[in-house]
């Protein structure tokens, strides 16, 4: 597999606070990377770096060999723990937004046949995440699990090079979380995605990822804890597991009560 993303001597500093220091890392195409680490170890900063929400203070980040611009773009999709979907749009309209933005730069809306084509694509994606029957629901009418499914569909419709998940299942209850794990795992495999997931749940990190990165500080100065930043302290490749996926297609559909 080829290298999709590489970090070369990356530092992130806010004033004299060092968040990430001397990070060297390559992420292969098609990997499912889980990021774990204690609070304040720069997990979110790491994700923001890839997302382009901020740039490194020093060092370079290359994507396909080209330096990453410090600005969010359609080549990197994201699902946050909350606020990932737009409350004023139905599921379908949430999903076609990505297509509309690309094809209608001035109006931001598509009409006629272009609209129908976009809707078809969006419906296909929503069906893949199990929301095929909830096209006209507003996010407020959906459960947390359904909203996260929608957020995933919304991101995947852009066919991003890399999908970033920021504690995507942290707010869900355990049963639904298990369903979401199956869903994301099967989407990853079927669509050959590259996923970077930040999580607090160690179990989740190890069961989902093909590679687990632990971020933490290597050194600690008790008088000036902010002067040392975090970096990758463990880089664990996971063994490929046989997928227990005989009944996958059933699992990723929403049950009739739509209570997940």
């Amino acid at each position, binding site marked *: 597999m080829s290298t999709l993303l590489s970090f070369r001597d990356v530092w992130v500093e806010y004033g004299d606070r060092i968040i990430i220091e001397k990070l060297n890392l390559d992420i292969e195409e098609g990997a499912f990377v889980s990021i774990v680490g204690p609070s304040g170890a720069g997990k979110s900063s790491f994700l923001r770096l890839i997302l382009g929400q901020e740039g490194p203070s020093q060092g370079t980040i290359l994507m396909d060999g080209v330096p990453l611009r410090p600005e969010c773009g359609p080549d990197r999709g994201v699902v946050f723990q909350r*606020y990932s979907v*737009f*409350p004023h749009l139905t599921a379908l309209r949430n999903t076609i*937004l990505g297509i509309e*933005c690309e094809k209608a730069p*001035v109006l931001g809306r598509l009409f006629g046949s272009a609209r129908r084509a976009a809707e078809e694509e969006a419906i296909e994606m929503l069906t893949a995440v199990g929301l095929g029957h909830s096209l006209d629901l507003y996010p*407020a*009418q959906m459960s947390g699990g359904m909203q996260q499914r929608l957020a995933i569909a919304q991101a995947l419709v852009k066919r991003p090079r890399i999908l970033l998940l920021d504690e995507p299942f942290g707010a869900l209850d355990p049963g639904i979380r298990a369903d979401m794990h199956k869903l994301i795992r099967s989407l990853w495999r079927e669509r050959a995605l590259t996923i970077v997931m930040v999580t607090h749940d160690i179990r989740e990190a190890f069961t989902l990822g093909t590679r687990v990165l632990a971020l933490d500080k290597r050194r600690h100065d008790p008088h000036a804890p902010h002067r040392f930043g975090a970096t990758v302290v463990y880089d664990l490749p996971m063994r490929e597991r046989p997928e227990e996926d005989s009944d996958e297609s059933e699992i990723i559909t929403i049950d009739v009560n739509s209570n997940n």
Partner: protein
Amino acid sequence: MRWVNRQVGRGGRVLLGAVPILLLVLVYIVMAANRHAVNPADKILPLPGAMAESMSALLFVPDQLTGQLVFWADTLASLQRLGIGLGISTLMALAVGLALGVLPSVRATLGPLVTGIAVIPPIALLPILFIALGLGETAKVALIVIGIAPVMIRDIAAHVGALPREQTIKALTLGANSWQVMIRVALPQAMPRLLHAMRLALGPAWVFLISAEAIASDVGLGYRIFLVRRYLSMDVILPYVAWIALLAILMDLALTFLSRRLFPWAHGESH
């Protein structure tokens, strides 16, 4: 059962709501009757009959000078000023508020100016408006706009600015440019708030309208009230005030209805 848990049914709410209003009317009528018993020519607390009589003249008999039905001409003139003022303010709030809320450079440029204008008491600017714009319609509409637009702009800007940062980032990762973030993410979510801001602005808008009409006008609800004050015509003033209250309530209800109808997602309408 404790008081905090006692719910009032629909019929009960209408009944309870009507009680204080009816009580107030009753108190007025008793006081008016008492005064009229002492002095049949009393002008301070006119009886309903006297009000109906003088109002019917304004409602149905054309004015000798202008040939207009005074009450309706006043209402039309006032609503026109109010409507234009509120309309301009709303458009300004939408355009400037959105740009302020979404674009950091606009916020840095215009933020202090809007704040500065917002803290000036608008009535203090009225002389300037009359000097600069004359005593016509423009000055009155301008007073309303200056009075309510800055507050509405700041409200919309604050609301848009408080939208979760995640939404903007999500939109950018979906390929949106700044313009698309404004019209597809910020604008639709600002709309219910805009209607809310209009409702809140209606009160001050009426204040500025009546003030402007009281000072320099020849037609309008405020003008009429201040005109007949010279003759102690409470029989005209009271119905006019009630009419203004009714108009204000109707506008408020219409805006609430519109917001619920157009933006159901903003009103927590669930399963």
